[in-house]
């Protein structure tokens, strides 16, 4: 818990960045330029202005969905602030345009808020250090799980070695003792099937961890901090039967979802 607390604290701490200075600079620059244009009476029509601004915003938004989203988010934030400042400046100098401008300001305010949200999320994700999760925590967890499977398999084999030894001497004892030993070894063999089930369950967890690793790769790439994910080899097209079969592979079910042998027997009987 202490570790988690300190991580949250780090994430909440604002990072001093040169970016803040740049934003302030661009805002003040736009204001003075608008003021000059208004003073000279060279403002283009409101419609033309709106079209131009919408086009500019669309262009920036399109960039945000491109591969280098991290950079585009910053551009979106800057553009939204810039346009908002421009519109505010115009409204100040041309009061009749307030209704149309108010709507535009509202849209840009939303965009600005969205960009700020994405920016904050980006910083929080960076504070979690996803590269650390990918390079250290996930491989370590996978190795530990593999070790569990190996250890339980080894233990199961030792148990069975000794059961087989017991079975080996059963011929030299009375029938009653032999039956008791047989019964006991059968129960031990049955109990050893746990290793197969736990192995499959752990296999499911390892698959989930690998899926998380791939998603972290994609996240790092989107944030501009990672390498491009390796293009996957084009899989051989699957037949309908292969797709249907793959959907049936889920491994051991949990709790209520798991069918009992009696339920399966009933289902099989319904075919007769």
């Amino acid at each position, binding site marked *: 818990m202490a570790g988690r607390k300190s991580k949250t604290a780090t994430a909440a701490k604002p990072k001093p960045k040169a970016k803040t200075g740049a934003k302030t600079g661009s805002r003040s620059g736009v204001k003075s330029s608008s003021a000059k244009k208004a003073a000279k009476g060279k403002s283009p029509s409101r419609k033309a202005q709106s079209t131009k601004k919408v086009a500019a915003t669309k262009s920036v938004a399109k960039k945000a969905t491109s591969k280098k989203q991290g950079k585009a988010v910053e551009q979106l934030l800057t553009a939204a602030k810039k346009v908002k400042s421009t519109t505010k400046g115009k409204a100040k100098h041309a009061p009749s345009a307030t209704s149309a401008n108010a709507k535009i300001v509202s849209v840009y305010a939303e965009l600005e808020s969205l960009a700020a949200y994405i920016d904050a999320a980006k910083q929080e994700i960076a504070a979690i250090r996803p590269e650390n999760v990918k390079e250290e925590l996930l491989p370590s967890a996978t190795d530990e799980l593999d070790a569990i499977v190996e250890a339980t398999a080894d233990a199961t084999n030792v148990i069975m070695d000794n059961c087989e030894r017991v079975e080996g001497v059963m011929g030299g004892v009375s029938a009653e003792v032999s039956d008791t030993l047989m019964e006991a070894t059968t129960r031990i063999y049955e109990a050893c099937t746990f*290793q197969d089930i736990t*192995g499959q369950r752990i296999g499911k967890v390892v698959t989930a961890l690998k899926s998380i690793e791939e998603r972290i790769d994609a996240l790092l790439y989107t944030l501009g901090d990672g390498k491009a994910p390796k293009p996957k080899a084009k899989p051989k097209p699957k037949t309908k039967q292969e797709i249907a079969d793959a959907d*049936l592979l889920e491994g051991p079910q949990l709790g209520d979802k798991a069918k009992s042998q009696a339920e*399966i027997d009933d289902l099989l009987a319904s075919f007769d």
Partner: protein
Amino acid sequence: MAVDMNMNVLIVDDYKTMLRIIRNLLRQLGFENVDEATDGTQALEKLKESGGDFGLVISDWNMEPMTGIELLRHVRADDKLKHIPFIMVTAESKSENVIAAKEAGVSNYIVKPFNADTLKSKMVSVLGDF
């Protein structure tokens, strides 16, 4: 008809520990001639090489590269093998799995984890009393 206790039984599972458990349980039931395969492809090769001289196949479902259901379909599609009783022993316990296995021609279906009594009762239902 009495069950031939000397018949060959093929057990198929990718977990070697599971193969060992089933082999030991079969031995306790009186079946000594037990052969093993670790996936469907290897099992199919053994079945074909034998010319169908197996009295029973007990197979897991989830294996690579060939799964148990694929092995079952191959067995049922082969004139020399299609008569062999086939019991699926698997952790896949959804109704869809049981239905798919039945449609593919499975003789019986055991869900893991299982006990020796279940194994014996399913073998009896497929082979007859022993």
